[in-house]
């Protein structure tokens, strides 16, 4: 009898527990954390269908170089990690067939890039590549390009962009160039020349001969055109320079100007800071009509304006509140409000091409540091922490910042500036190699690609 009661009681508990089992829904697991380790990728050499001698060397050598450039580009982002080619199990051939995924998975490869190259009857180079998701075992991308053989390096950049874009969701920035000021000579008699290079430091070129001072180059957001400031008869003069055609054009003489103008997002206007009777204000100039309109009228010093990517707002620097801070206003000069409220001073605000952040140089704690904040002033983060980092410029996709870093004079660095880049999350700080000291970088928009198949 006693046992039967206990059994009933027990049965009751069992039913109760089964009831709760039945009441629970489908198992749903929330995953809110992950790793930010670089994604492992493999880029085996691009294979020639037929190995021939070309004007720039053996085709197979070009294939090796292309894969090296792509690998180096992707690794430089800090988002990807290249798997050592000595570990490769499968040898990729020029035949158009799916790779054997099973031989790549043991290497922990997630993205595999295979490619083939051939010389077309007209003498041009045809480069084809495919991007494979090794884990899902599918092709993610496959594109072919025709180009003169000498252009192989650009093609490698274009392919890198394509892969980057497919793997990260945002536009690539490898097929771009950097304009900067190359500095040489004694600190008191510095020779400053305008220089240009590919974003990875290749193809260095000097654009001016150094006989006159060149300052603050700025890129047009949609044309291969830069403005820079120079001095003519000791008067600041602003030049327009077209990189594709190598043509200079004088935009005008602007007395009391200290920075070159910045372009508007449509490239049709430039915005600048001019001093009138010792008081700097923001002005905008229409490049077609050359008409100048004054936007701010404040006794404070208003400088370094920069447009938002939609052209509706302008971020600038002002000391109207007592110290140098960042302000935002509408494109017509109305609705001015301050966005920076941290300790220290803020200089050279630049609106991200992506629109979600404003980069700046923060001056404080005896340092110049690069930081970003949202356009409403929230989410301020410092990305670098060196002695003197300044002059941020955004990559065209708004993902990476380039700036110049000056070493401390007494530490043996000699106060020499050099170019550095940093990811907007603050990771992956890298020096950009330049043959001379370098300052004032400006990042170009993507170069035009005329033929895409």
């Amino acid at each position: 009898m006693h046992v039967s009661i206990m059994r009933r009681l027990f049965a009751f508990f069992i039913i109760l527990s089964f009831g709760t089992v039945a009441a629970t829904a489908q198992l749903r697991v929330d995953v809110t954390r992950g790793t930010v380790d670089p994604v492992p990728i493999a880029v085996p050499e691009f294979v020639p269908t037929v190995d021939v001698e070309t004007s720039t060397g053996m085709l197979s050598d070009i294939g090796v170089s292309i894969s090296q450039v792509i690998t180096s580009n992707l690794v430089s982002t800090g988002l990807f990690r290249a798997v050592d080619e000595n570990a490769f199990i499968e040898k990729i051939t020029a035949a158009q067939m799916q790779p054997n995924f099973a031989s790549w998975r043991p290497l922990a490869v997630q993205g595999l890039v295979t490619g083939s190259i051939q010389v077309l009857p007209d003498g041009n180079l045809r480069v084809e590549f495919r991007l494979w998701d090794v884990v899902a075992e599918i092709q993610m991308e496959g594109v072919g390009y025709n180009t003169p053989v000498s252009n192989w390096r650009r093609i490698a950049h274009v392919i890198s962009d394509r892969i980057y874009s497919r793997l990260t969701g945002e536009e690539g920035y490898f097929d771009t160039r950097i304009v900067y000021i190359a500095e040489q000579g004694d600190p008191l008699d510095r020779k400053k020349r305008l220089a240009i290079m590919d974003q990875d430091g290749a193809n260095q070129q000097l654009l001016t001969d150094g006989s006159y001072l060149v300052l603050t180059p700025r890129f047009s957001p949609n044309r291969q055109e830069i403005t820079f400031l120079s001095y003519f008869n000791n008067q600041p003069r602003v030049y327009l320079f077209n990189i594709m055609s190598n043509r200079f054009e004088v935009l005008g003489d602007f007395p009391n100007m200290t920075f070159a103008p910045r372009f508007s997002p449509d490239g049709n206007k430039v915005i600048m800071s001019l001093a009138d009777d010792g008081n700097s204000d923001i002005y905008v100039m229409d490049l077609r009509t050359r008409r100048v309109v004054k936007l701010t009228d404040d006794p404070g010093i208003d400088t370094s304006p920069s447009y938002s990517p939609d052209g509706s707002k302008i971020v600038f620097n002002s000391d109207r509140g007592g110290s140098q801070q960042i302000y935002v206003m509408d494109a017509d000069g109305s609705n001015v409000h301050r966005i920076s409220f941290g300790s220290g001073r803020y200089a050279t605000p630049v609106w991200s091409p992506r629109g979600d952040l404003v980069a700046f140089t923060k001056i404080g704690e005896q340092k110049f540091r690069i930081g970003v904040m949202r356009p409403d002033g929230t989410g301020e983060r410092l990305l670098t922490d060196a002695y003197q980092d300044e002059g941020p410029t955004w990559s065209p996709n708004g993902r990476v910042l380039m700036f110049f870093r000056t070493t401390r004079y007494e530490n043996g660095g000699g106060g020499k500036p050099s170019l550095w880049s940093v990811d907007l999350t603050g990771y992956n700080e890298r020096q950009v190699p330049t043959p001379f000291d370098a300052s004032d970088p400006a990042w170009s928009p993507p170069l035009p690609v005329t033929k895409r198949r």
Partner: protein
Amino acid sequence: MVGGKLGWILSALLHISVVVVALMGLPYLQRPLPTPPPPIAIEFVQISEKTQQQAPKEEVKQEAAEEEPQRNIAAVENVPAPVENAVPLPDKTPPQEVAPAPKPEPKPEISEARALAQNIQPRVKPRAPSRLKSQRIAALIDRSIKEEKETVDKIDEQQEEKEKIEEEKEQPDRFAGLRGKLATASLRDALSQKLSGCWTFPRGAKGIEKMQVTVRIWLRPDGTLSRPPEFVDAGNLNDPSRAFFRVFAESARRAVRLCEPFTEASQYIGAGQKYIDFNFNGAEFAGG
């Protein structure tokens, strides 16, 4: 006799519940006490020496302020005591002795049970076919009766529990679902933990803090994927304006495949559930 025993059981349950309420309730009632002390100032003593009559009163008040709340509670508890004979016993004992003891005990029990329940999973399955053999049905029934007795004892004696679970491992028992339920919470944690190790996502993408995607996987009993994972309500991934989201979703799908096989979920799958939903949330990757 039966009625008498039932009464005993009910009264025992009642008493136990009263004791439990007292044990669990009293420490909480005492908690607010520690705060009052700060205002005590030694200087008051000096002042009291100058004006003899007022000073001692103030000291007494402050000391009383510390002790009073304890007395109040004790008084409240003492009031019901004279009414019944049975009740006062627990009231006198609990506040000092038992407060620390009851809490730590139940936790290890549960975690041990869960851990053991997880361990059982793989061994349950191979036994399943043997249950269907007609020759052993009688033996199984016998076992199930024994097992019930044992589990009844389990409520009373905690130490024997481990041994019984070991015995139960050998059987395709009806409590698998129950233990699976107990293990579900830890299974969810375990899977979440496991996936976070497989999920790699390029950080800093625009709008990542608001992205989330659900990947559904179907499992075989051995924990491998029985068919390719699918997105749930993910919309059109080829929409050019959702390039970031496509990359996000694909990274989630890769994570699920990289984490294969899901052996820890085999018992869950064995319990009749066909699939698991993983909800990936990108807030963590907002940068900074």
